[in-house]
């Protein structure tokens, strides 16, 4: 069984995603890192469902749908702000602070 290794892998992927979110400044990239995190979790779900039955797999489908929805909304919002600032660099987005 590959339960252990695949969990480790998913943890690594998750951490990569986290690192990306932490380090990158481009909204699009950031969003992609989040997607990576989600899919890393999906991996563990799938892996775990081998042990605990299909609930995990069901979960994966939900997650994918949700990710899709988020993608749609997220990109829309990024577009919206792009119209204002002509940039998707988060460094410039600190009008709200203090």
């Amino acid at each position, binding site marked *: 069984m590959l339960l252990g290794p695949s969990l480790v892998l998913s943890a690594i992927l998750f951490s990569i995603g*986290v690192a990306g*979110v*932490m*380090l990158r*400044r481009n909204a699009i990239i*950031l969003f992609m890192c989040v997607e990576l995190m989600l899919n890393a979790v999906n991996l563990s779900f799938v892996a775990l469902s081998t042990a605990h039955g299909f609930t995990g797999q069901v979960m994966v489908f939900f997650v994918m749908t949700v990710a899709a929805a988020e993608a749609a909304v997220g990109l829309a919002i990024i577009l919206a702000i792009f119209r204002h600032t002509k940039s998707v660099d*988060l*460094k410039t*987005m*600190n*009008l*709200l*602070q*203090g």
Partner: protein
Amino acid sequence: MNPSWIWLTIALPFIGFLVNGALALAKPEAKRVVAIVGPGVLLAAFAVAVGIFAGLWGNPPDQPLVFPLWAWIGAGGLEINLALQVDQLSLVMLLVVTGVGSLIHIFSVGYMVADPGFARFFAYLNLFMVFMLILILGSSLPVLFVGWEGVGLCSYLLIGFWYQEKANADAGKKAFIVNRIGDFGALVAMFILFWSLGTLEFAEIATLAPTTLAVGGATVTAATLFLFLGCAGKSAQIPLYVWLPDAMAGPTPVSALIHAATMVTAGVYLVARTSVLFAMAPLSSAVVAGVGALTAIFAATIGLRQYDIKKVLAYSTVSQLGYMFLGVGSAAYTAGVFHLVTHAFFKALLFLGSGSVIHAMHHAYHATHSHDDAQDIRNMGGLKRYLPTTFILMLLATLAIAGIPPFSGFFSKDEILASAFGRGAEHPIYYLFWALGAAAALLTAFYMMRMMAMTFWGENRTGATEREHLHEAPMVMTGPLIVLGVLSVIGGVINLPAFWPTPPHHGLERWLEPVLAPAARLMPVQIPHGATEYALIGAAILIAVVGLVAGYRTTLAKPITAAQQAPEEVGFAKVLFHKYYIDELYHSLIVRPLVGISRFVLWRFVDQGVIDGAGVNGSAGLMKSLGWLGTRLQSGQLGFYVIVFLVGAVWLLHSVIR
């Protein structure tokens, strides 16, 4: 008259106070009414007092008669009735206070009639009598304390009677506060007595103290010493005498009534009242006698170099009060009270006499719009031509205070000195006290004669034009003077010593015997007999005569210059003239530091700086600055937010891995 009418003696002046007070507020110009009511109520009270005295004359009570008015304070074991106590001692005081009081009230009608505050003056004066009588008649320490503080209040109001002058208001305030220092002692004494005896009633103290407390023990000594602190404040003894000379800022009748005849003797009265306790505490008695003797000589020296006629008399009062304490401190309570009585006579006379002198001088200066000091004896001289009656009477009083037989002062002062000398056999220190007393007697005779000489003899220095306006006071003022003159001369009769050819002997002593017996049992009076006694008497007379003659001679030896041209004092005379700089000392050592510390250390530093600044506003500021820090972290940078997020996440995850 039945003693149960005693409350009337207080009620009458109180009515007078109400009437005059109302008039003072509503209708100050109604001086005629005031002139009748003011002295009237006092005379009535005196009549009542005489009636009661007559009633008890035949059958003096062996136990004090207590007349409770109503229950005043009640808390736990402390039950205080507002009760009046009639016994031999309080009767003597009653007669003196109401009698002399009435005379002075009458005198005041003439003296104050020109003053716009006439009604207010008599309101205060009546109120003073109310409290003075409560003081005398109170059957327990707290009730006495009511009068004790009340007379202080009235003295405050009367000293500052002409409050438009800051100096007068200051003097009044000084008197009250210095007295308060004494009251502190009185209060503590009451606490000690209550918790050791369980009562503050004089009668019960007298019976309980000997059985409950140890003679010479710490309790009774502490109690009496604190009590004496109170007496020292009220009766102007070292170190609390400083207020009395300033008190002369008040109208002269006030000085006569309050600061000579009645209030200032309250301390002596209190010691006599609690004689049992003092008799049980030899140390305290010695302290009392010592302070008394010291004050007597100290004040007398200052009296040598005063030019304000009232200041001279003020210091002489301080000094005479010292005598009284020397007496009671020597267990000669009768002698103390005796001197209290005679002193009331001649000192009141002297003050009122000085009053009529000032009255005349003031009129003279007023008529000529001169601004010279009407009280400075350097501006007087040769007044006997203009004020013959006053002169004669004041001369009698001077002889009395100097101790020339057969004037009243001779007997009382001699008895005090004799008993002080007598106690010397037991405690040699008393010989020293006696010596001080004797020396003070010499000085007394000297400065009194100096004052008389500068005022009445020699050539007049008032000024040519002013001289025309000098004239004797009206009858309403001289009348009381004459009565007091008679009393000063024959006052000694109430307690003639054994050696005196004619009876009645020891009248006062036998009269007071029931009150003072308990004390006498513990600490008997020791009057030397035989040769010693006569030697002492001889010495006393000699001292008096020398003093008088020397005073007359030295004063009139060289011409005196009027106040304006008077040269600056030099050497020790200057120190005396400035009263040993005691006031300055107190002011710079106590008053100014206290105010300074309060303002700059306590208020500005501790209160506003530390507590409010650092503590209250400081913590508020700290909160704000911490908050400001938070806003800085809120940079708006998503990256940083993520980092904070992760830090939190790591911490949480760590918290479950153990």
